[in-house]
């Protein structure tokens, strides 16, 4: 009896979307260890329901479970009295800022010049509900409909969260750049 073979469709789905799942978990938790804990829990949950559900969009379905596990972990950490804001520090960024074209207005230029650290700290300052829609849209390239599935909210909510996320990010980056200028 092939006792330890996992359903190959499940393995395939996991393999195909592991990078996106890991990336999201890393952004929704504080440390690599937390991200991996949340991922392990998510993969177990996903495995248990995969055969029954046969999700139409395995990516959105997997990311939805990953996201929920990350939120559960955050809640647990908050309950345990651990600070949730001290995220793991990134190594300093060596990339030099790219200069905007001369025709651009100052805000657009500041956005283009923002370095990785400024960008990351601004993104970490957002509430996770805004952070995730921004990441899913701009980095993972998901359509609104898929983001709605991942976050478990209607498309209208995705649109308003995305709009607020972008507005807050721009404000944070511009304020940060002006301060350091």
């Amino acid at each position, binding site marked *: *009896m*092939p*006792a*330890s*073979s*996992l*359903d190959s469709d499940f*393995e395939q789905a*996991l*393999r195909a979307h*592991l*990078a996106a799942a*890991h*990336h999201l978990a*890393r*952004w929704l938790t504080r440390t*690599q260890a937390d*991200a*991996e804990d949340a*991922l*392990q829990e998510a*993969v*177990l949950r996903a*495995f*248990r329901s995969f*055969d*029954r559900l046969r999700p139409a969009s395995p990516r959105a379905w997997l990311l939805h479970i990953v996201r929920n596990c990350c939120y559960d972990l955050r809640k647990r950490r908050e309950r345990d009295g651990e600070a949730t804001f001290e995220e793991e520090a*990134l190594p300093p*960024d060596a*990339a030099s800022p*790219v200069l*905007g074209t001369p025709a*651009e*207005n100052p*805000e*657009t230029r500041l*956005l*283009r010049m*923002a*370095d*990785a650290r400024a*960008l*990351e700290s601004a*993104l970490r300052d957002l509430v996770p509900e805004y952070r995730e829609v*921004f990441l899913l*849209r*701009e*980095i993972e390239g998901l*359509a*609104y409909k898929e983001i709605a599935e991942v976050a478990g909210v209607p498309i209208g909510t995705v*649109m308003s969260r*995305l*709009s607020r996320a*972008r507005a807050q*990010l*721009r404000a944070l*980056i511009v304020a940060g750049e002006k301060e350091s200028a």
Partner: protein
Amino acid sequence: MTCAEANRLIGPWVDDELDVRSVAELEAHVGRCAACGREKNELLALRETARERLPRFDPPPGLEDRLLRGVREAAAPRRRFARRLLREVALMAAAASIAVAATSYVQRSADPGGEIVDAHLRSLQAGHLTDVVSSDQHTVKPWFQGKVDFGVPVRDFAAQGFPLVGGRLDMVGGRPVAALVYGRRQHLINLFVGPATDRDRPLRSVSSRGYRVSSWAQGGLEYRLVTDIAASEADELVALLRAV
């Protein structure tokens, strides 16, 4: 189009989520309005910067293997549990074969669950309970393929206290059916699944010789569950099975 209207649509526009007509109107507006044009450029600049510079957290090497190993480990103890349960019911099986002998004399022409209870009792005789022993639904389900001409939905309910023990082929009323075996403490539950003769049928439960028989038809399949556990517990499993 006013600036307020345009502003609301610029996000969906850069995200390619806008219909063609609104795109045309928005393009016309942005061509005339510098402020809305700046808004669009800022959103695009933010995206570009995020894509180029945001740290990309790639999975560390071996993560996938670690995650899959975790899944296998979580599944393994339940298989051991299923084997232990099987050993424990071997004694019961001996007792049950006596019950079969005793009840075969009972007249039951008017007993609607009789045939099913017979099949249940037959299964409890040593060596006949399962052809495939596994608590893993991904092992049991494919086992039926090619043995019966219908898809057998196999689900494990260990988390709810009804671990899957295994499955076998059986004959009920002269027709081949799939039998799934679940455990409940020291008790066993037989679930017979076969093609439905007509459309969906609501749940009906009868008692026969101390066994509870629940039957229903759903999604083209006929289900008959027989067990000697308490009616309330049997109903619990029936509810789990009927939930899609």
